[in-house]
């Protein structure tokens, strides 16, 4: 593979080829009910469908299709299967799935882990698969006993004959059950009979994370495997113009120097040798085309776009009054602008992947959120049939959207092919931060036409943002639209008669993509800051003002919960102020109240209260953990994290200048779960940061009367004081 081919090519080529069948395909139940047979199974292990296998040794194996990156999917989703199957949870084995149609997210028929939709996307399907397997086992037992099915039931890994109390273990009848025709519309277990769902389960991989045995991508090894360290053009989009292989070939452990897209790799017997040799390698890059890009120039680009007249009207409701037509139509008009910054994912486990490529096949092992994109991309790039590309997923040391991309997977395959051996590529932290695909900065302008009492009668948003989905889900992106950039604006619960959203999709010289909270983060920072400003203008309490605009019952209950749990109605101590924010994001309703005080630009957060309605809480402890962590993530976004550019390069390079929240930043965080229905499940992996960020700036306004409309707050000289 030529090093001249741009990185962008690798990220998008496969989607262009495969995009046609990503959308508009309905789920085929047959692909789920059929066993998956990519890898050979032991002869006494019997698949009842793609998700459940039972051996004659009475081992129940449940398949985990979603990538485990801390959000608990490897526990909660198999628990859905086990619940319906009536398996003994303490004895089930969990297996990470291959890439196969059966394991695609039914909503978009595409196998990935992201968009906070593992639970919502798979809940019905997994219930059906567990129940279907249970009915096959019951049928097999009834056949064995020669009794009607209706006299039998499943319980704790056994089938019981009600009348005689005879029992058979699942393993006794697995072989016979596997020969039966699966039921496509099995009877689901009533919720009142649930034993696993709704209760906190110990994460299935927890023990391995406590003694060092958990295998992340970076821990994967193969006999005879080599290691690669990579350096990509410091200027985004640049190329290697020359390199001197001989400058490192006599260094310890070095095996080869291999060009990769936009960069160079040194291959060695161990990672440390590769890393050392890479530092010594004589290599020149050509980044001329893009070397002018800087944060200052990008700021101008955003400003020019906002002041320009090229807009795509993406939402028009009621009169959809434009901001420039509001004056004269309403007693008052109020306009403000809000800016969110570029962010890096900075997963604690840096990008890495292991590949073994031969002329006949390609096998990879890695921490992947986008295994199907990896499979398609590698098949296209290596000109191998899809069935000769094997994708194996490890645990992920964080994902946050970064691992939906496959740039690091492509590198591993190119290098393995070049050296003819299995290779593990590991990015240094510097490479990881400087060659991230960033959460784009966003510029929001919001205008409201207000009636005499200050209530908004019309609202108009203008949003300027580079693409979020281009590299991970290209079919959804057009020349002038990207739905992810508009999240949180298209479906507001605030009752405002005239609403419009105008969008400008910006093309910029740095790569951008999905990051935890996607469009919701920047947009809700803008909206919830603006609503707070309107409340102040109207002379209303921020909670009362919001309540006056909300009718949706779930919105109101979440708001009421956070207000009562945070003592919002009680007067705060002297010098202490509170800020509130609410939204629905990723189908979950969430509200935060932040309580803080501020002295000499030093912000002390005393406590944070959160209320969340994600529908029926399938595992309350995992949900709580996720929201706590998301809240902490938001502290970093609000106060610290910032990616900037100079001379076409990313300025920040490691955790000393790309800062994230630390223990001393973390105040007590109380998460209150509002019990909801299984009909309204929502995601909890990304929603945590969304409302805490505006709740912080709203609290700072309440404390000081100063409104901060751009992030991070460190830009304004504000710092977090130690919370303990």
């Amino acid at each position, binding site marked *: 593979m030529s090093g001249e081919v741009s990185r962008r090519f690798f990220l998008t080529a496969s989607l262009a080829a495969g995009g046609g069948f990503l959308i508009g395909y309905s789920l085929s139940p047959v692909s789920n009910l059929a066993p998956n047979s990519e890898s050979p199974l032991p002869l006494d292990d019997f698949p009842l469908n793609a998700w459940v296998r039972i051996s004659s040794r009475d081992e129940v194996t449940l398949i985990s299709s979603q990538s485990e990156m*801390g959000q608990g999917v490897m526990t909660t989703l198999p628990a859905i299967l086990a619940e319906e199957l009536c398996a003994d949870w303490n004895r089930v084995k969990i297996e990470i799935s291959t890439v196969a149609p059966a394991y695609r997210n039914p909503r978009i028929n595409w196998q990935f882990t992201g968009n906070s939709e593992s639970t919502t996307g798979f809940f019905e399907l997994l219930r059906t698969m567990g129940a279907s397997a249970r009915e096959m086992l019951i049928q097999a037992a009834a056949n064995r006993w020669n009794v009607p099915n209706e006299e039998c039931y499943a319980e704790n890994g056994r089938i019981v004959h009600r009348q005689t109390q005879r029992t058979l273990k699942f393993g006794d009848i697995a072989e016979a059950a596997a020969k039966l025709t699966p039921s496509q519309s099995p009877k689901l277990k009533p919720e009142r009979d649930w034993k696993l769902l709704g209760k906190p389960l110990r994460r299935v991989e927890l023990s391995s994370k*406590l003694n060092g045995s958990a295998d992340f991508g970076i821990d994967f090894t193969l006999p005879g495997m080599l290691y690669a360290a990579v350096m990509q053009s410091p200027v985004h989009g640049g190329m290697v113009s020359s390199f001197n292989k001989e400058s490192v070939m006599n260094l310890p452990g070095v095996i080869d120097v291999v060009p990769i897209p936009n960069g160079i790799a040194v291959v060695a017997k161990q990672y*440390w040798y590769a890393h050392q040799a890479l530092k010594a390698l004589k290599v020149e890059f050509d980044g001329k085309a893009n070397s002018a890009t800087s944060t200052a120039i990008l700021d101008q680009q955003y400003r020019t776009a906002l002041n320009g007249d090229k807009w795509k009207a993406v939402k028009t409701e009621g009169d959809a009054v434009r901001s420039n037509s509001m004056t004269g139509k309403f007693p008052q008009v109020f306009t403000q602008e809000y800016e969110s910054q570029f962010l890096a994912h900075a997963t*604690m486990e840096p990008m890495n992947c292991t590949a073994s490529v031969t002329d006949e096949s390609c096998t990879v092992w890695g921490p992947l959120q986008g295994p199907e994109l990896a499979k398609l991309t590698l098949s296209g790039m290596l000109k191998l049939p899809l069935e000769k590309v094997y994708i194996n997923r490890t645990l992920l*040391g*964080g994902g946050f959207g970064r691992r939906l991309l496959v740039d690091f997977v492509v590198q591993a395959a190119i290098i393995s092919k070049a050296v003819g051996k299995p290779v593990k590529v590991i990015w240094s932290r510097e490479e990881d931060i400087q060659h991230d695909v960033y959460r784009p900065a966003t510029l929001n302008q919001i205008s409201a036409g207000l009636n005499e009492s200050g209530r908004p009668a019309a609202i108009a948003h203008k949003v300027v943002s580079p693409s979020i989905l281009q590299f991970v889900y290209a079919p959804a992106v057009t020349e002038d639209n990207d739905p992810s950039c508009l999240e949180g604006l298209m479906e507001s619960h605030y009752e405002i008669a005239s609403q419009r959203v105008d969008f400008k999709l910006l093309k910029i010289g740095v790569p951008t993509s999905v990051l935890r909270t996607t469009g919701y983060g920047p947009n809700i920072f803008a909206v919830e800051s603006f609503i707070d400003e309107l409340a102040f203008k109207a002379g209303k309490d921020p909670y009362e003002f919001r309540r006056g605009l909300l009718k949706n019952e779930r919105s109101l209950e979440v708001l009421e919960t956070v207000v009562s749990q945070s003592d919002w109605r009680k007067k705060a101590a002297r010098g202490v102020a509170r800020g509130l924010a609410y939204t629905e994001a990723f189908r979950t309703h969430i509200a935060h109240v932040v309580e803080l005080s501020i002295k000499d630009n030093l912000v002390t957060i005393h406590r944070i209260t959160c209320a969340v309605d994600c529908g029926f809480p399938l595992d309350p402890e995992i949900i709580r953990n996720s929201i706590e962590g998301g809240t*902490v993530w938001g502290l970093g976004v609000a106060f610290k994290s910032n990616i900037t550019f100079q001379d076409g390069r990313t300025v920040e390079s490691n*955790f000393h200048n790309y800062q994230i929240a630390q*223990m001393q930043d973390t105040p007590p965080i109380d998460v209150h779960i509002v019990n909801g229905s299984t009909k309204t499940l929502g995601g909890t992996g990304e929603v945590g940061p969304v409302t805490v960020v505006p709740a912080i700036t709203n609290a700072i306004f309440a404390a000081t009367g100063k409104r901060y409309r751009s992030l991070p707050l460190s830009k304004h000289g504000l710092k977090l004081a130690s919370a303990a």
Partner: protein
Amino acid sequence: MKSVAFNLNGSPVTIDVEPEKPLLWVLRDDLGLTGTKYGCGMAICGCCTVHLEGDAIRSCVTPMSRIEGKHVRTIEGLSSDLSHPVQRAWMDLQVPQCGYCQPGQMMSAACLLVQNPNPTDNDITDAMSGNLCRCGTYQRVRKAIHHAAEIAANKGARA
């Protein structure tokens, strides 16, 4: 290359190695103990924390020349059966999310509890500020350290 002899998790080890090679990569790639993680290479994130003579140190910046004759303890040496108070507390409070930083968190916590069996919130913040967690599990880490202190105290009382 130089022969370096040291004690690893209670057992003697001798290895021929470049004296400047960081302990982290020797643990991971020469000795196959992958529980100790690479995170930043600059002693900022704490993922690579191990004990050297009982002190919590960053193995990514610790050259093998400093290891000669010393005792090194890694996450694999905390206990094999998850019986160490820190492991038990981490289990009880379900601390980990992705889990990548947790070996480092636990090694820092174990060191703190030896030096200060009953730490305050401030003591915990001081000891743990160099261990980053991108999933944001700090609140549970803090609670788990208090819990581990209780577990260790009860164990001591029984013994």
